[in-house]
């Protein structure tokens, strides 16, 4: 077999090895400020627990873009969308009390590299004419899953059947 003909099998083998490795990953980390674990694979599901940035979750099952995960000692189980978790190692030490306190206070961004609250604070110092009051206020607009479910039901808005995507 010529060297050129070897090229494609080499690349394909790399891809397969990577796929097998990725499929075998059991623990992932929450990469959003906070997210609900639902009792079914939907953002409108009833929340069974709240997880925060850096929390580790153990993957039990995958259904489309949704993962059934357990947290803590494994007794709490719920569904989370894949956009909320990552295989990548996060900068904070996941699972510590420090993460929870920092996540709830909003200070965890100070510990992460790159654009963070410190960079925003520097920007504010240089541009005192730009007001973030309404940005903070709009981030506070946050209906619960129960409220959104009630809103859709009251308006006769119902998704077609077909399961999780």
């Amino acid at each position, binding site marked *: 077999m010529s*060297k050129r003909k*070897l*090229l*494609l099998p*080499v*690349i394909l083998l*790399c*891809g397969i090895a*990577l796929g097998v490795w*990725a499929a075998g990953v059991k623990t992932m980390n929450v*990469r*959003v*400020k906070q*997210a609900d674990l639902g009792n079914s694979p*939907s*953002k*409108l599901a009833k929340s069974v627990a709240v997880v925060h940035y850096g929390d580790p979750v153990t993957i039990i099952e995958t259904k489309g*873009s949704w993962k059934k995960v357990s947290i803590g000692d494994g007794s709490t189980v719920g569904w*989370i*969308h894949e*956009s*909320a978790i990552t295989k*990548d190692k996060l*900068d904070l030490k996941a699972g510590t009390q420090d993460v929870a306190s920092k996540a709830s206070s909003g200070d965890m*961004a*100070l*510990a992460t*590299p*790159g*654009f*963070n*609250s410190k*960079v*925003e604070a*520097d*920007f504010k110092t240089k541009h005192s*004419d*730009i*007001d*973030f009051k*309404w*940005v903070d*206020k*709009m*981030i506070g*607009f*946050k*209906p619960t899953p129960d*409220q*959104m479910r009630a*809103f*859709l039901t*009251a*308006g*006769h*808005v*119902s*998704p*077609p059947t077909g399961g999780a*995507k």
Partner: protein
Amino acid sequence: MKRLVILLGAGALLAFVVSCAQFKSVTGAALDGAAGVGLISKQTADAGKSGVDLACDAFDVITPEQEYWIGRTVAALLIKSSKPYDNAAVNDYLNTLGQSLATASTMPETFGGYHFLATDTEDISAFAAPGGLILVSRGLLKCCKNEDELGAVLAHEISHVQDRHGVRAIKKGRLTSGLVKTASKTAQAMTSSDVAQLAGAFEDSVNDIASTLVNSGYSKANEYEADAGAVAIMKAIGYNPAALRDMLQEMEKRVKPEAGFGKTHPAAKDRIKKIEGLIKDAPPVSESAERQARFQKAMTGV
């Protein structure tokens, strides 16, 4: 060079299914391996690895957290020129409707979540800042005849967020100069030069995005993609996607070519043509009495 292109092309396919760190690691090993058995020269392998570094880092380095901080400042810049509409009923309604729609997005979770705010201007405009901060003008709200049409507007903006069109508007080179070089450094390890470069990259990035949103708009391809995304979201949650067509027809009558949507979006008739196939099975929009009543109640006084 041809071999390198083939290798990188195959590698790019892998990049869709793995994170950039994993992609770089595997592609680097593959290039080293190919050089080791003489398929390509070491020089070519090194060139390939640095190409992968640049292509990967410039975009992938923007994590959901980075996007959140960029989006906050973009939103603040937009709010400076379009003052908020301080009406709790309208903003509560926008957020309940918008966040319900966002649950059906392909990216329902962003670092800080999706949030909506009405702006107090008669201009017909809507802006989606990275990370999910979405502004909709009073002028645009007045174009909507029912909740499904307003839902179509919000779903279109949610699609811009899920497809990350905002951060894609950052000019090439902005991030390699500041963010990439400092991405792996802790706050303690940052030099004053690093801090200055990072601040410059941040300011340039938010200005790129805000300027694109207000002055030139996203590309036509991005707008058509956001329309298709809006149809998918509406179908998934149970709203009638034909409302997007109705909304575009209304805007065609109202929008001035030189302002707001007219300046930043493709012509409504072209957008309608693009979604025709996606909504062909949708019935005409017919609102339930309850849905129409709450829409009209929320829009009172707008």
